[in-house]
């Protein structure tokens, strides 16, 4: 445990984390935009249309990475929440809380792109399909975490409560996911398994590139939000006052 604690305490030092984030953010953005442009070119121009879904398969290059991120960020948020509650590391609290809006944005995006994909494919914008439904429940979980954090007058108390809720949600998430999937097969025994078909290699590369780009987006956005939160929490301390007066 001592190694974990040491790493966290270095990251937990607000001025150090603030400087580190300020240094890393431009590089992360560069990686995100570079990979994203490459992936978009591959997905929108180079990749062929799918023989079943036609051109609308191109929405997948945005939809699938967003759905992956929406679940991955929730898991990450809960892991940092766990660290915050067990080792009482302030930085982990800040990171967990900063993850929530980014995760909610990806969830929203997965829902919007999913229903825009559904209109040409299924003929309707919204189907109570297992994936869309569990994404919707996931959005509610994110909104709950954000709402709880915002409802407290003391930000730290709200952050810790939100961390605990994220943990409870993480325990429940697989149950929600599998029960929704099972519920769906119960009510739609003859659903068309378009999405279930295996991925053609020509789709794999743009998908992987976009998935990497969204990961860098998350990291850059997370560090930006962490910087904001650090300044809000330490506005009276020396290093913030020095930073405020620095020439831009």
């Amino acid at each position, binding site marked *: 445990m001592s190694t974990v604690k040491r790493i966290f305490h270095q990251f937990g030092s607000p001025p150090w984390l603030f400087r580190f984030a300020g240094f890393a953010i431009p590089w992360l953005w560069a990686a995100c935009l570079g990979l994203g442009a490459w992936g978009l070119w591959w997905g929108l121009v180079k990749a062929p249309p799918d023989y079943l879904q036609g051109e609308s398969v191109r929405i997948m290059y945005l939809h699938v990475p967003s759905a992956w991120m929406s679940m991955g960020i929730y898991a990450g948020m809960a892991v940092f929440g766990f660290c915050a509650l067990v080792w009482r590391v302030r930085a982990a609290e800040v990171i967990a809380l900063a993850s929530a809006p980014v995760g909610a944005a990806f969830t929203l995006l997965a829902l919007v792109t999913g229903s825009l994909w559904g209109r040409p494919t299924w003929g309707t914008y919204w189907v109570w399909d297992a994936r869309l439904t569990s994404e919707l429940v996931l959005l509610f979980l994110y909104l709950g975490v954000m709402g709880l954090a915002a409802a*407290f007058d003391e930000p730290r108390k709200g952050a810790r409560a939100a961390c605990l809720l994220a943990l409870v949600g993480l325990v429940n998430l697989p149950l929600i996911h599998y*029960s929704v999937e099972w519920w769906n097969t119960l009510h739609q025994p003859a659903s068309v398994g378009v999405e279930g078909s295996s991925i053609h290699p020509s789709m794999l590369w743009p998908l992987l590139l976009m998935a990497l780009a969204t990961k860098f987006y998350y990291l850059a956005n997370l560090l930006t939000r962490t910087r904001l939160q650090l300044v809000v929490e330490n506005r009276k301390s020396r290093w913030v006052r020095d930073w405020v007066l620095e020439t831009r």
Partner: protein
Amino acid sequence: MTGRVFLPLLRRDLLLAYRRRSELLLPLVFLMVVVSLFPLGVGPGLQVLSRIAVGVIWIAALLATVLSLDGLFRGDFEDGSLEQLVISGHSLPLAALARVAGHWLVAGLPIVLLSPLLALWMNLGEGGWSVLVISLALGTPTLSLLGGIGAALTVSLHRGGQLLSLLVFPLYVPILILAASAVTAATDGLPYNGQLGLLAAALVAALSLAPWAIAAALRLSLE
């Protein structure tokens, strides 16, 4: 020492509830009003009603549970007895379990007992009645336990009611799905043991995990 906190707390909660008997009826009246609105909204056609019966009764039960959960720990929080309990050295998860058990006996069990009447109103197929009662008996304690976590997290907030429902409804999704499909299977003459078994498993899991989460949330709220 741990054995000495559960029963006294439970007895106290039941006694307090008994002294305010009229408040006990409120969740039940709420349940009846909500269910009786559905025929008015979707029309009195018996076929339509029997198709949506399970969902309506279960969702009304969810709403009634959450409504009664809002004040689960608030009184104890505001008069300081929660703080006394925490520093008394008694097991806090056990105390939380006592609180939730009291809540279920007062607000959950009546729903279970009332459900045959609701099934009658909603024209639920007769094969589903007993399964509806069993599913509510297995499911509502889980609802109380999961909701207890939300109630403990929002205990120090002044207007936690709507937030509480946002927090706990997503957690209720698996229970709702399992219970509804058990009853639907029973009315269709299909086997339903699997769903009821999973509901029981969820109850056991919630019984063994939720008290610790509630205790952690209460400690957080008192910090």
